[in-house]
């Protein structure tokens, strides 16, 4: 009763053949992957100063040192919190501003790069490439270069993170845009609305919840990024942490205080953003 164009010969043999082929490919893939993993591990182990197995028992040495230095000075923690709070604020500000500006740029870029929305459809590949490059650029690269020109402080970090954020969010936003309903936009086009009006009134209301959700996620990532950039001289809490950590024994109490501050901030924003996003997604219905 089969209507298939190539009538079945022997389903048993066919299947076994297919299964063996699949098993071969699957096994080969797994073997290559395992080989890569194991040889990669051995290579990394070899090129590392200390070996993995010999280092494993000492994993807690550093935390133990920190603990031994900081625990007796626990009474100073609140004071340290107060001292370093302004730096934390700077870190959060860097993240917030770069998320805001980066998202704004991303909105425009993503629309210019989405088929159906683009102002210049021929230039879509240009904007796509541009976003790829912005996204591929690690923040630290831009920050360090800018520090040379602009001097230390929050601004190089802010620009660096903004740049990367624009690329990263741009890609996500354009994925959201692809799913936007084009009908309202055509409707607006038919009344003679300009491009900005079409985007603002026709697209933004549709995609805003998704934008917002991705923006929040990015904000959380950017807090880490801005803390990290402090390590290379871009100010904020990362700068303080690096100095205290570098000094080591004698200032581990400060390091611990800064670490706790930073950790709590990250966790709080992480939880906050996942709550809000959950809410958005459930409310938005998609």
């Amino acid at each position, binding site marked *: 009763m089969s209507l298939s164009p190539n009538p079945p010969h022997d389903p048993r043999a066919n299947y076994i053949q297919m299964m063996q082929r699949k098993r071969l490919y699957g096994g080969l893939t797994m073997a290559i992957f395992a080989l890569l993993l194991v040889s*990669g591990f051995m290579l990394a182990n070899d090129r590392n100063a200390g070996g993995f197995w010999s280092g494993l028992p000492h994993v807690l040495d550093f935390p133990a040192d920190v603990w031994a230095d900081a625990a007796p000075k626990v009474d100073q923690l609140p004071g340290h919190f107060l001292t370093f709070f302004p730096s934390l604020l700077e870190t959060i500000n860097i993240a917030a501003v770069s998320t805001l500006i980066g998202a704004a740029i991303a909105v425009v870029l993503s629309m210019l790069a989405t088929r159906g929305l683009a102002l210049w459809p021929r230039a879509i590949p240009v904007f796509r490439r541009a976003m*790829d490059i912005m996204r*591929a650029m690690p*923040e630290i*690269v831009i920050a360090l270069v800018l520090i040379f020109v602009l001097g230390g402080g929050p601004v190089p970090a802010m620009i660096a993170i903004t740049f990367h954020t624009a690329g990263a969010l741009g890609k996500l936003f354009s994925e959201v845009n692809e799913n936007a309903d084009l009908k309202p936009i055509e409707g607006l086009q038919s009344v003679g609305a300009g491009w900005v009006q079409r985007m603002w009134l026709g697209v933004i209301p549709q995609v805003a919840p998704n934008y917002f959700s991705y923006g929040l996620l990015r904000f959380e990532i950017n807090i880490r990024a801005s803390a990290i950039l402090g390590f290379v001289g871009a100010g904020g809490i990362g700068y303080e942490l690096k100095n205290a950590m570098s000094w080591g024994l004698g200032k581990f109490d400060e390091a611990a205080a800064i670490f706790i501050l930073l950790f709590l901030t990250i966790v709080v924003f992480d939880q906050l953003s996942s709550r809000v996003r959950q809410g958005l997604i459930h409310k938005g219905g998609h």
Partner: protein
Amino acid sequence: MAASDLYQSSERLFRRKQLIGFAFPAVILTYLVYVFFAFDILGLAERARWDNGATLVRDTYSYKTHVTRDNRNGETSIAVEGERKGSYPDGMVPPWVAASGDTVTIDLKDGHRVTFLPNNGLRYEVPGFGVIEAAIVNRAVQTNLGDTVPDWVSLSRSRLDITTDAGRVSLTRNKTEVFRYSFGWELFFYTFTSPYHGHSLTDILFGPQIDPTRSNLIGAVQDFWYNPMWQHGMVVWAMFETILMAFLGTFGAAIIALPLGFMAARNFNRIMPARFAVRRVFDFLRGVDGLIWTIVLSRAFGPGPMTGALAILLTDTGSFGKMFSEALENVDPKQIDGVASTGAKPLQRYRFGVIPQITPVLLSQVLYYLESNTRSATIIGAITGGGIGLLLTQAIITQKDWEEVSYYIILILLMVMLMDTVSGWLRRKLIRGQDA
């Protein structure tokens, strides 16, 4: 409803919308203004050193050759970027340098010409300005400039510095130095010490044997690989180490996070406190950033790629653990029921009821992280001492080898984009073609 009521309610509606429409940007604008002052943007504009920026940009596409005369013994040396590794061997001079006796003439471009005169003298013909002559007399710099020193000349008793569009000249008691800028990345393929310097590709491939001890191909590749200025071999290794860190970290984390994900998923672990504990562990691993893990781990494992890989592994175990457990909480129980109803053992239930469902989700998340971890590995490498990130940050911090900086940046961009492409390709390939 009467028309006037409708009018009013609509006007109210629009007033409210306008209010929101203004309040929202206003709040953001206020915040930006606050940050504008908190970050001292105005002061920044003053402090910004655009000349540094110009140096940076110029260095990325050009290089300078130093012609240096040691004023104590009168010897002249020529070196690219003033580095020993870029020194011209004895007897070899670039075409724009002419030496006759004690006099060395250096032809900067556009009619600029510098001459090293005997007795530590210096003569610089600047088109459209005239001739600047200077010498060390009684251990002090003497010039023909008189009182009118143009602003592109910096003069003190012990030092003269002239900066023009064509190059730079400096004169001190110890040495006289001329910098000539040329376009390109000089010595990118071979330094002067290599016999292959100055040979074209066709020469090397098809020409007669250049180095009697090695075949052309082998010698050319070796000397390129070990080029002492650019050190391509080391750079390639560094890129490889970076990718290795990302690869080991990402997949190691995925392997560890999978069983832990089950322990944190509501539908697979009924013991609330255990679930809670595992989740807090995830939060902790994630919250302590990879960079801090790097520092913590470098005590036990020392500098190197393994330390970086482990740092990525720890952070990502947190991220994956959270994502995996969420994916697990969304699995379709019907499939598990179906497998369970045949009398399958618990492991078999996971293997056939759960794994096929979550693999596409997990795989796509893991592969997405692979690309982003290549970027993280670049940063982490800058701290632990490994990979392209270290080379890059160090080159930037020493603030002179901007051409190397741009070389590294280009390589990093290519590397990340490559990883993006690879992970995207794998994602499409595996998730479409993959079967349990």
